[in-house]
């Protein structure tokens, strides 16, 4: 194990040098590279470059649809970015993140699908015409608003807790959302909701642009949404908000003495993280066109946290890589169907032994684990 670790250290140093050289480039050159990379991302569904064809998931017979995989990757990157705001930047361990994903998905389902119980009730109450529903474009702000509200409802009373206690409460929240969806009339319970709309628009031959055959438009949509949120999160990160989050993460009491209203900024982190989770829920539900409570199990929450931790919490590129790996690898290696969970588990353990800070750690590596140990000691002393 030690030789492995040494080798990894060497690689790490090499990568650090690359990173330094990258940061030393002028800003416009970095921007050009980024733009080229984004163009490549948009081109990905048609990927046909001879050497790179092997990464397509439909390369082998048993593989899954390439565009669907890409779409799923984009949605999960969005989620990992949202969770990164909560876990990586503000340092709050959230084990119930799937709750926000579910709230977002159910928002578009309940307000968009014309036979949903909520829409039926609205139509009956205000005597609207049969088949009336909220336009798909409007369901996104509704979903973001509802998830942010649910984030505040969860955060308001619980953000006074720290560390493990907060993790337990959020774990409960994720389950509450699922169980409410399972047992309520207004969500149609275990039956789920079908006929969830997607974005409007038709091709020249009359088929829907956002249909079920060609998934590439869905991927482009998700990618665009993702890029918008990368912009938003980076903007917040490089402002006093980002500094306040980091300060709270590193030493909450010292931050308070320095005039940082920790509670306010933690609540914002929760709300913004929730908003991102909700948006990805909207994309997921719209593409699936059908959701039921089994889509939102605790397993997903754990995988979301794994994405952030494996990738490198606190760093957008890192968590994006973590999300892509944990989504893409199982799809690519569908052939080994029975061994997939085992392989993923082993891979996670190896990554955590070799790179406890994640694959691409942030410049300021996350110290939550370390801090929590210190906190525990302080608690004992106090």
């Amino acid at each position, binding site marked *: 194990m030690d030789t492995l670790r040494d080798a990894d250290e060497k690689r790490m140093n090499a990568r650090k040098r690359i990173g330094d050289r990258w940061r030393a480039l*002028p800003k416009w050159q970095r921007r050009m590279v980024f733009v080229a990379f984004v163009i490549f991302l948009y081109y990905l569904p048609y990927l046909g470059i001879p050497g790179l064809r092997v990464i397509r998931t439909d390369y082998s017979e048993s593989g899954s649809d390439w565009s669907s995989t890409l779409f799923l990757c984009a949605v999960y990157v969005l989620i990992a970015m949202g969770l990164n705001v909560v876990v990586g930047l503000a340092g709050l361990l959230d084990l119930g993140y799937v709750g926000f994903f579910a709230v977002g998905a159910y928002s578009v389902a309940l307000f968009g699908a014309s036979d949903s119980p909520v829409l039926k009730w609205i139509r009956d109450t205000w005597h609207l015409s049969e088949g009336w529903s909220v336009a798909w474009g409007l369901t996104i702000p509704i979903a973001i608003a509802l998830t942010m509200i649910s984030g505040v409802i969860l955060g308001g009373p619980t953000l006074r807790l720290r560390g493990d206690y907060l993790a337990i409460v959020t774990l409960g929240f994720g389950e509450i959302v699922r169980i409410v969806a399972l047992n309520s009339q207004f969500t149609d319970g275990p039956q789920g909701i079908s006929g969830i709309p997607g974005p409007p628009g038709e091709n020249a031959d009359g088929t829907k642009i956002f249909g079920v055959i060609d998934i590439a438009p869905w991927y482009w949509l998700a990618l665009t949404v993702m890029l918008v949120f990368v912009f*938003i999160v980076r*903007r*917040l990160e490089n*402002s*006093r*908000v980002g*500094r*306040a989050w*980091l*300060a709270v993460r*590193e*030493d909450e*009491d*010292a*931050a*308070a*003495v*320095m*005039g*940082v*209203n*920790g509670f306010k*900024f933690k609540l*914002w982190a929760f709300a*913004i993280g929730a908003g991102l989770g909700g948006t990805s829920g909207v994309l997921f539900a719209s593409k699936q066109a059908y959701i039921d409570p089994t889509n939102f199990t605790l397993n997903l929450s754990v995988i979301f946290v794994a994405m952030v931790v494996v990738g490198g919490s606190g760093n957008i590129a890192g968590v994006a890589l973590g999300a892509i790996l944990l989504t893409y690898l199982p799809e690519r290696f569908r052939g080994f169907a029975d061994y997939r969970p085992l392989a993923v588990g082993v891979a996670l353990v190896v990554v955590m032994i070799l790179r406890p800070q994640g694959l691409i750690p942030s*410049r*300021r*590596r996350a*110290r939550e684990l370390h801090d929590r140990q210190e906190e525990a000691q302080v608690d004992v002393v106090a």
Partner: protein
Amino acid sequence: MSSPEELSPGKSGELPPLEELEVEVIAAPPPNPNRVLLDVNNVTLRFGGVVALNEVNFQLHEGEILGLIGPNGAGKTTCFNVMTGVFRPTAGSVTFDDKQISGRKPHQINRLGIARTFQNIRLFPEMTALENVMVGTDARHHTSVPGALFRLYRVRAKPDELPRVDSNNGLMRVWQQIRRVGAQIFGVSRHSLEEWAGERRAMELLRFVGIADRADEIARNLPYGYQRRLEIARALGTEPKLLCLDEPAAGFNPAEKEQLLKLIKSIRDLGYTVLLIEHDMRLVMGVTDRIVVLEFGRKIAEGSPAEVSRNPKVIAAYLGVTEDAA
């Protein structure tokens, strides 16, 4: 927006003379020595049966350096904690700037104008030195979370607050010029203005404490003495009226103590009021205007350094005396 080269950080660890600094960026408003800034009035603090502070009384005037000394366990840090809102006094009150302290949250007390350092250094270890100080300067800023995101609130900037044209690259210079003119015509977002002002102030404070050459290093990697000074810079970043230093010389060698003494004096010269908890008698005697001595939670003496050092009770408390001599 200011580049590090332009600011010429000075020799590492040396305190630059005040004349070399942009004093107006970091100075406090001129103090009024007749005004009582902090009034600790009959403060008693009990933890169950233990009396940590017993009717402690003292006042602090603007622009003065007050030393708070006493043997180990005398209640110095407890007194500090009452003043910074960590504990609520059982009886009595603490008034700062004519406002009650007790019952306010730590960040609200900071906004009132009390900043402190910690006995055991508590920086934000994974943030750079500059970012640490900028967390402090953020305390006085008004940009909200949506404000930082949308940046729609435009304000007019004074010429010296505008982005500077400082690139060596011709194309970049043109771009910077365009930005500068644009900012003059359309105004700048309050977020950017505060960000520039904060960075400028933070950088100047780092120069003031003599560690500007390592502004971009993460705090954890700084040497011990630099960390102590960084804590002082961070506290000054919040634009306090009163700066409380909790044993700033702990772990320092004589040369470093000498520098700290100089630093504390120039902090006062900038117009800040300082409350100093310290063990090292030489340092306390050399820098303070007045000294309050605590023993077992009681104030046993108060006065100028010379008076206090002659006071038999103080000598007894520090050196101990035999029963019959007392």
